Each structure stands twice: as structure tokens, then as C-alpha cells.
């Protein structure tokens, strides 16, 4: 009987070493609180819930403590585990292009086609990427890590994940969480910078109504866009190729079912998997480092630089434009590719000063140009450093 009791005691003691309570560290608890905070932001404040709910819950999943020496194959970094298999979409970089396919299928490039000069704002806002790149170099990161951190300034989660999976896989978790967090915080970060850099007169500028865009132009855009951008930067092919393919599905008008799948069930499925696995990749042991804190700091700065450069570029650009063609600098912030949030910010801030001035459709131009611009920038960085 004594043997049996001691057998049970040993078993229970052994079981105890497998539990989360036994293996928990302060890091795990901190990360779990961060995950809960993300979920709170998503549910209560409605900051990018589509991203923050999967990422926040992913953080909880990734930070359930367990005995890592037991070979249970449950952790995201344990080869062959279910989470590890799902995570391969991130590490091999095939989730981001699929997201781009969906983005392409849901994006209307009409605003950009009708007023193509807005594309230049999308290019100017990419200064955020390279401003952060310079700062990251100065802070001691090597060029590949700095490029991965800099891409946060593109405000484009899939691009950030794609590039960091190629250039700095060890920083990918922090970069992805940082990129998505700041994208969610666009309504907080951008308005003060926009107000600071513009005068009241500039905020009241009314832009010319965009002309109607023909079906032929809409069909031509993805084809010409792909050929021009990818001949220039072939390394951007996975992202740009899928973006323009998705857009052609939408605009061709004859592949409605495919376009609906791409912008509906496909992008939803991939967003869930991407968010969950990126969140789960933030295991405390890997994530809670000084580098992560630096990345979060640099990420915030990159968003500030991107917003400021977009707004300032419009102000300079206006000096060269005729009176009736002036651009409202409040759409400069939309050059970062957080679609459509940053365009919405232009509308909201613009409406504060003139409720009858509708900037949303104009802001969508630089917004989608920003998507193209950040994918091109990622391609350039990849081409230069690999």
C-alpha cells in the first residue's frame, strides 16, 4: 500500500513539473498581460480588432508555460508541432503574399488612376522606412536587422513579416507585433503630427473632384503596374505580383467568384492564421529582450517620420502646382499603407475643420500607392542586402 501511495505521489509530482504553474516565469506573466491588453484594445477601443484579437490571443497561446525539455511538441518553435506547422506560413513567407492577394481583390485603385500624381505621396511616405533604418543602424543593429525594423515604417504588416522572415528571422515576432500595434494606433499617432505640420488655410484646401475612371483603365492598372514595378524591382514580385493579381481578379469583371474568395474567405483565413501564429511566436524567452524594446521605440519613430514626410511632401509639392490643382496636406499621412485607416484619419481630421470637405476618396490614392511603395521598398532592401 505504501509503495502504491508513493507511486501516486511521484506521479503527481512528475505531473506537477509539466504544468504551466510549475514552468511559469515572470516573462510569461508579463506577456500574458500584454496579450490581454491587446484583446482589451481590440474589444473595448476597437483598434484594428481583426488583427489585435488574433495577435492578442496568439500571445496567450504562445506564452502558456510548459516543460520545454519534455518534447511534448506543443510549442511554436518545436519542429513538427501543430503551431510550428502553421507558423511555417510566416517563416517561409507565404502568408503575406496571400494577404496581398486579398488586399488587391478588395482595393479600388480608381482614386489613384484618376489623379496619378497622388502616387508620389505614397513614395514620399516611405521615408519612414529609411529614417528608421538610419536610426536602427545608429542604435547598433546590423544592416539586415535595421532594414527589417525600418520596414515597420511602411505600416504594412504583411510586408514587414515577409521582409523580416528573410532578413532577420530572430526579430520577426517583435517586428510583426510592433508593426500591427502601431497600425492599430494610427488614430492616436497621426492626427497630432498632421495638425502640427499644417496651417489652418492648408487644412481647408478643397481638392478637384476625381474624374470617372473607365473599366479599361482599371483593367490596365494591375497589368501595367506589375510590369513596371516588377521589372524595376523583381525581388518585390511575391508581394506586388499577388497584389496586382488580386486587383485584376476584381477589375476584370469576369472572375467575380475568384475575387470574392480572395477578398473574403481566403484573406480571413490567412489573417486568422497569421495573427495567431505571429502572436504565438512572442514566447517570453524569445520576445522579452532589450532588442524588442528598441524595436518598439524605433517602430513608433518610423510611423512619426512616415507621417511627417508624407505631409511635408504635399506641402512642397503644392508649391509646384497650379491654384486649382492644390492637394490638401491632410492626405499626406495616408501615404503610409495602413489601408484604409490612415485614409480615414485624413477624412476625420479634415472634417474637424470643414465638415463638408470630403477627403476620404482623395486620401485613398496615396493610401494604396503606399501599399505599392512599401512593397517596392521591401524589394529594394531585399535586393540590396541578400
Amino acid at each position, binding site marked *: 500500500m505504501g509503495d502504491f501511495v508513493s507511486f501516486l505521489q511521484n506521479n503527481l509530482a512528475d505531473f506537477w513539473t509539466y504544468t504551466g504553474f510549475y514552468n511559469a516565469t515572470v516573462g510569461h506573466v508579463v506577456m500574458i498581460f500584454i496579450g490581454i491588453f491587446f484583446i482589451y484594445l481590440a474589444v473595448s477601443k476597437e483598434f484594428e480588432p481583426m488583427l489585435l484579437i488574433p495577435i492578442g490571443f496568439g500571445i496567450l497561446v504562445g506564452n502558456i508555460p510548459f516543460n520545454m525539455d519534455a518534447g511534448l511538441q506543443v510549442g511554436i518553435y518545436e519542429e513538427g508541432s501543430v503551431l510550428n506547422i502553421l507558423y511555417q506560413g510566416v517563416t517561409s513567407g507565404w502568408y503575406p503574399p496571400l494577404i496581398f492577394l486579398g488586399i488587391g481583390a478588395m482595393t479600388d485603385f480608381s482614386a*489613384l488612376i484618376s489623379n496619378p500624381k497622388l502616387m508620389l505621396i505614397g*513614395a514620399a511616405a516611405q521615408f519612414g522606412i*529609411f529614417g528608421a533604418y*538610419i536610426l536602427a543602424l545608429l542604435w547598433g543593429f546590423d*544592416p539586415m536587422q535595421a532594414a527589417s525594423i525600418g520596414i515597420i515604417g511602411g505600416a504594412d504588416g504583411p510586408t514587414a513579416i515577409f521582409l523580416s522572415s528573410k532578413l532577420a528571422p530572430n526579430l520577426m515576432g517583435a517586428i510583426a507585433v510592433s508593426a500591427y500595434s502601431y497600425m492599430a494606433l494610427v488614430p492616436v499617432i497621426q492626427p497630432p503630427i498632421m495638425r502640427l505640420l499644417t496651417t489652418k488655410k492648408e487644412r481647408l484646401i478643397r481638392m478637384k473632384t476625381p*474624374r*470617372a475612371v*473607365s473599366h479599361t483603365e482599371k483593367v490596365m492598372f494591375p497589368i*501595367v503596374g506589375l510590369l513596371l514595378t516588377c521589372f524595376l524591382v523583381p525581388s518585390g514580385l511575391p508581394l506586388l505580383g499577388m497584389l496586382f493579381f488580386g486587383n485584376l481578379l476584381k477589375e476584370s469583371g469576369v472572375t467575380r467568384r475568384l475575387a470574392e474568395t480572395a477578398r473574403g474567405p481566403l484573406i480571413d483565413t490567412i489573417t486568422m492564421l497569421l495573427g495567431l501564429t505571429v502572436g504565438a511566436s512572442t514566447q517570453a524567452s524569445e520576445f522579452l529582450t532589450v532588442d524588442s524594446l528598441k524595436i518598439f521605440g524605433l517602430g513608433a519613430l518610423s510611423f512619426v517620420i512616415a507621417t511627417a514626410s508624407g505631409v511635408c511632401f504635399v506641402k512642397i509639392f503644392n508649391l509646384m502646382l497650379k491654384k486649382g490643382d492644390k492637394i490638401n496636406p491632410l492626405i499626406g499621412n495616408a501615404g503610409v499603407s495602413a489601408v484604409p485607416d490612415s485614409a480615414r484619419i485624413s477624412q476625420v481630421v479634415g472634417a474637424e475643420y470643414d465638415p463638408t470637405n470630403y477627403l476620404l476618396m482623395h486620401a485613398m490614392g496615396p493610401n494604396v500607392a503606399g501599399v505599392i511603395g512599401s512593397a517596392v521598398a521591401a524589394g*529594394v532592401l531585399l535586393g540590396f542586402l541578400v
Partner: protein
Amino acid sequence: MKKSKIGMFLSLLLFVCLTSCTGKKADSKLVINEVLTDNVSNFQDDYGVHSGWIEIFNKAYSTEDLAGCLIKVSSVPGDTVTYFIPKGDVLTSIPPRQHSLFWADGAPRRGTFHTNFVLSKTGDNWIGLYDSGRSLLDEVVVPGNLLKPNQSYARTTDGAETWEVKDDSADKYVTPSTNNQTIESNPKMENFMVHDPVGVGMTVTAMCVVFVGLILLYICFRFVGKLAVKLRKRNAMKVHNVTDKAEAKERGFGEAPGEVIAAISMALHEAQGADHDVEETVLTISRVKRSYSPWSSKIYTLRETPHKK
């Protein structure tokens, strides 16, 4: 837009396309990468024998199969020996950017990677690699007079165009079944670290590329937009049977702004009996009529209320 301008734009585009096209020779994915003819004390095979060897490298980023390929060797003009690489051996598949080593020991019975010829230790050796369709993939003449025992003749780096003698010195070492030059760093990144430690060069160059890409798109769609407006105007003129351009401009043909089109669309939508946002203040309550069906009848679907008997 004038026709001459359109012509100039198209000519410029064609010129850029044509000048950027360069003739590139067809590249084989499988190449002879390193050859050692006189093996005295170098790498030994799985039988413990020192024989000459030929290393084949897969330049591609995809798996390539050597099965069915031919290795031809000639050390005397007019006398060529051919070794047929057997099919059915999974080991003949070379993973991306990897190597495969063939022993020139004249003992093909020892396995797939043992050839039926021996390399000349003193004279020149011509070695050719052919695919299963008998097309030449790669060839090399190994100069016998340059090589001492245990020295190999190899490409400077894997798949490179230039060859050199690997004499086992510090930077030229014999590398059977492995990279001809060990890559210990990322040269591109190191270049940036040395020449552009602050990142200004990268910023300027990369931003130029981003701007060029989007400026190209801008130019293209500015041109396309103007063409589209012109075509629309021409169609409108045809419909209204107007031939005078000044009159067409005055009447604003083809210049319908988005708001007008939106208003027309809305009017059509409403005319087709669609719902409207602003309701009239007259409230009408209509009796909802539902046709009787025993399937929805409460009499049949409700169970009898329990009662005491």
C-alpha cells in the same frame, strides 16, 4: 495630347525596353565544379581508396536529377570514354546549390558514383557533362601540366566562370563535395557596414528606386488617363453628331465629373424602385397577410396542455 507626343512616349518606352534587353547565353543548371586527377592522400571513397574525382554542382535553386546524364572523358584525342549515370538511384538528385562527387576509379560496379574511367594523371583531360538528351551541359579541359598530386582544378567559387588551381594553400583549398569557397559572411551586408555605416547611401538609393517606380506608373497613367478622356470625348461627339471640337469643349463632352455620374446612378437606382434613405413622414401600417399552411399551424404543432384527470 498630340500624336507626336504619343509617338515620342511610345518610342521612348520601346527604346528603354530594347536597350535593357541583353543577350544572355543559355545557362546550364548542372556544371562541372572541381576536378582532382591525381589523388595520393586526399579524400578517399567509401572503400578507402584514393582515386581521382569529379565534382558536379547544381547552380539552381531547385533540385536537379543527374540520372540518365552522361560524363564523357577524353585524355587522348579521338578516344572518348562515356559513363552513363544510372537511373533509379535517389542519390542522383542534387538538392539546390549542392554538390555530387563521382570517383574516376574505373570500377562502376562499386556504385552509381564510381565511373568506368580513370583520369590521366599527367596529360590533359577533357571532361564533358551531357544531359539525357545528349546535349552538352558543361565541359572543361583540365590542364595536366599545371596540377601536382592532391591539387585540384576548380571554379574560383561554386558555378563561377573562372577556374584556378587549388593547391591547398590558405585561400585555395581542395573542397570535395563542398563549397569551393567557404562563405563566412554576407559580402553585400559587410559592404554596407563599411561604406555606408549611417545608412544615407541606402536611403538615397532606395528612395530613388521607389520614386522611379511610382513616377513611371504616374507617367504611364497620366498618359492613359488623357487618352481615356479623349476617347470619351470623341464618343460623346459621335453620339451628339458634333464634329466641331470647339463646340464639343464648350458643351463639356466627356468631362462628366464623378458627382454627375454618381447622381445619375442614384437616380436610376431610385427609378428602379430601390429603397431610399429619407422616408416620408406619412406612416402606413399594412396588415401582414400570411397564407395558411398546416405546417405552420399552431393547432397542429402545439402539444396538448397537460391536465389532471
